[in-house]
């Protein structure tokens, strides 16, 4: 099946700054695809290139539904967009805002009115209450819904969303995340979603392109991105990671032994590209590590000993920060089983061993 969107070697340069560098990717039909990264990584420029607000540097091509749209204007691309600031027309009522795109398509009035109603109902705004209101009379959350209705009423093949939930409070954001995901499934529209919020991307996306410095650092499903981050950037940007470094020294049973500078040995799973005597950097998620008494470390795991610096209460989890060397520490996340009933047995100053299983290590590619 033809992909909904295809970027072929697309670059975008502003003056001397390269905002997007040789980007190639495909987005499947009906997919919820997120572009995730910190500000300035190129995610918004990528979306604007797809919308047609920017033209790529010569040589790159953008395809929608198999057709080259590189030279097409935004109004020729059959897509729709929800803007970060919502960009509702302040001089038009809710109803006229939603009708705007249909009017541009020269639909007869009689066809527009029911579709506007439907679109408002789709985003759960009561048409009788809201149709005549002006954007200035709406709350942030309601504006968001109007912007969404205005985009969805066109039944576009592709919906672009530029951090549309950025300005809303946490509870509303969680609610909208689930609604957006449900709309994507129900309507079969391809969603291309730009966000800097990793949790948001993990919650909604079928696939995520993590962008860093104008390039895609990693592309994959939320589980692939979270559980197998390929670079230190991805490991650090998506969730928290502990990093351990060392030099490979021999392979046995599909595991490599890695020697830390201080002489301590630990094992990591085999991986293409690893060879003897190589400096590697390993990422381990805090929740995949555990704490042991120094003399009770299970033999099948890796362990580094240290002393507890701090225990942090986070509600759902407890973070224990363990100093393992001068200026080097690991964070271990433990489930909070109720500090009032079953408090953690660790406190600052305790000697402990941080343990983890070799298969929970991710050897990073950018070592």
């Amino acid at each position: 099946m033809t992909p909904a969107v295809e970027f072929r070697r697309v670059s975008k340069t502003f003056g001397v700054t390269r905002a997007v560098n040789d980007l190639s990717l495909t987005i499947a039909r009906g997919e919820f695809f997120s572009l995730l990264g910190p500000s300035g990584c190129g995610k918004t420029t990528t979306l604007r290139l797809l919308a047609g607000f920017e033209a790529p540097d010569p040589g790159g091509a953008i395809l929608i539904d198999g057709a080259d749209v590189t030279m097409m204007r935004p109004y020729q691309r059959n897509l729709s967009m929800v803007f970060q600031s919502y960009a509702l027309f302040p001089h038009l009522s809710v109803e006229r805002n939603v009708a705007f795109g249909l009017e541009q398509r020269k639909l007869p009035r009689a066809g527009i009115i029911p579709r506007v109603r439907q679109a408002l109902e789709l985003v759960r705004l009561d048409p009788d209450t809201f149709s005549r209101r002006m954007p200035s009379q709406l709350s942030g959350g309601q504006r968001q819904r109007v912007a969404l209705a205005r985009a969805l009423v066109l039944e576009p093949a592709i919906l672009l969303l530029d951090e549309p939930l950025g300005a809303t409070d946490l509870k509303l954001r969680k609610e909208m995340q689930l609604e957006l995901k449900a709309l994507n499934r129900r309507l079969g529209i391809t969603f291309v979603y730009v966000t800097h919020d990793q949790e948001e991307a993990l919650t909604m996306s079928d696939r995520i392109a993590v962008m860093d410095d104008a390039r895609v650092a990693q592309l994959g499903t939320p589980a692939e991105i979270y559980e197998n981050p390929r670079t230190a950037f991805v490991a650090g940007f998506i969730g928290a990671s502990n990093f351990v470094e060392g030099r490979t020294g021999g392979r046995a049973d599909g595991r490599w032994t890695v020697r830390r500078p201080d002489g301590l040995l630990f094992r990591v799973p085999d991986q293409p590209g690893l060879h003897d005597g190589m400096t590697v950097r390993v990422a381990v998620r805090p929740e995949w590590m555990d704490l042991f008494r120094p003399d009770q470390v299970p033999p099948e795991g890796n362990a580094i000993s240290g002393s507890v610096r701090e225990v942090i209460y986070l509600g759902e989890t407890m973070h224990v920060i363990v100093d393992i060397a001068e200026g080097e520490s690991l964070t271990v996340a433990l489930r909070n089983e109720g500090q009032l009933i079953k408090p953690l047995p660790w406190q600052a100053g305790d000697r402990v061993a941080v343990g983890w299983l070799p298969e929970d290590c991710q050897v990073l590619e950018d070592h």
Partner: protein
Amino acid sequence: MTDRRRRLLAWLGRRPALQAWALIAPAGLWLLLFFLVPILLMTGYSVMPRGTYGGVESGFTLEHYARFFDPLYLAILGRTVVVALLCTVLCLLLGYPVAWVIARSRRWRNLLMFLVVLPFWTSFLVRTFAMIFLLRDTGLINTMLLSLGLIEAPLTLLYTPFAVLAGMVYSFLPFMILPIYASLEKLDPSLLEAASVLGARPAARFRRVVLPLSMPGVVAGCLLVFIPALGSFLPSDLLGGAKQMLIGNLIQNQFAAARHWPFGSAASTVVMAGVLAGVLLYLRTRDRPAPAMPG
């Protein structure tokens, strides 16, 4: 002294309403004295009999108003309204694109703004005189066209309605550009992108989004041009050679040469009332609740 001042300031600090009044008072008194009082005086003069040696005598009469509604004067008023409207439309057509470019440009914005307000650095009178040198038979335009061989005899430019209009448009153009620029500059660029992605071509984008949102600037600009154009007398005097009288010339003549203050006052009052009625009408039609979508 300083202690008293401190106590006074503290006392004022507890009274925000009084603070506001204190800030408004100087300008308010100024306007009261030099704007409101003269207008009331003038309105009063317009209903008083003319004095034998100029000025007014006590009494009440509507004869000046009756005289104003003579076809002769109504023709002057009509011509003035047409000229002022033409001037406003020309300023709008010339000024809007300029305001748009200034509002959109980043690098050149300050320079362009500087150029727009540059004419204010010299007086209106001097600038109007300067146009005579440009437009007269031996002026720059005619000399150039003659030397290029494009014309055989000098064109009559000066002392024509064209010259009057040219002078007025030139003088009032910045008053059109500045308010339109101010409203376009506030326009969120993402609104244009939203319109575009929703299928609006450039012309539709302008008609449906840019123009309605810049209407406050357009209206302000039109008022700022139309009202002074309606009352102006220098361009028609200097560039039109006083051949075709505008209402401004009439009023000026009544106050100066003819020394008929009551009639001048009556004419002024009629013009002012007309402008006021127009503005009030506009304010009433604006800010209506959102109309239902035409079905």
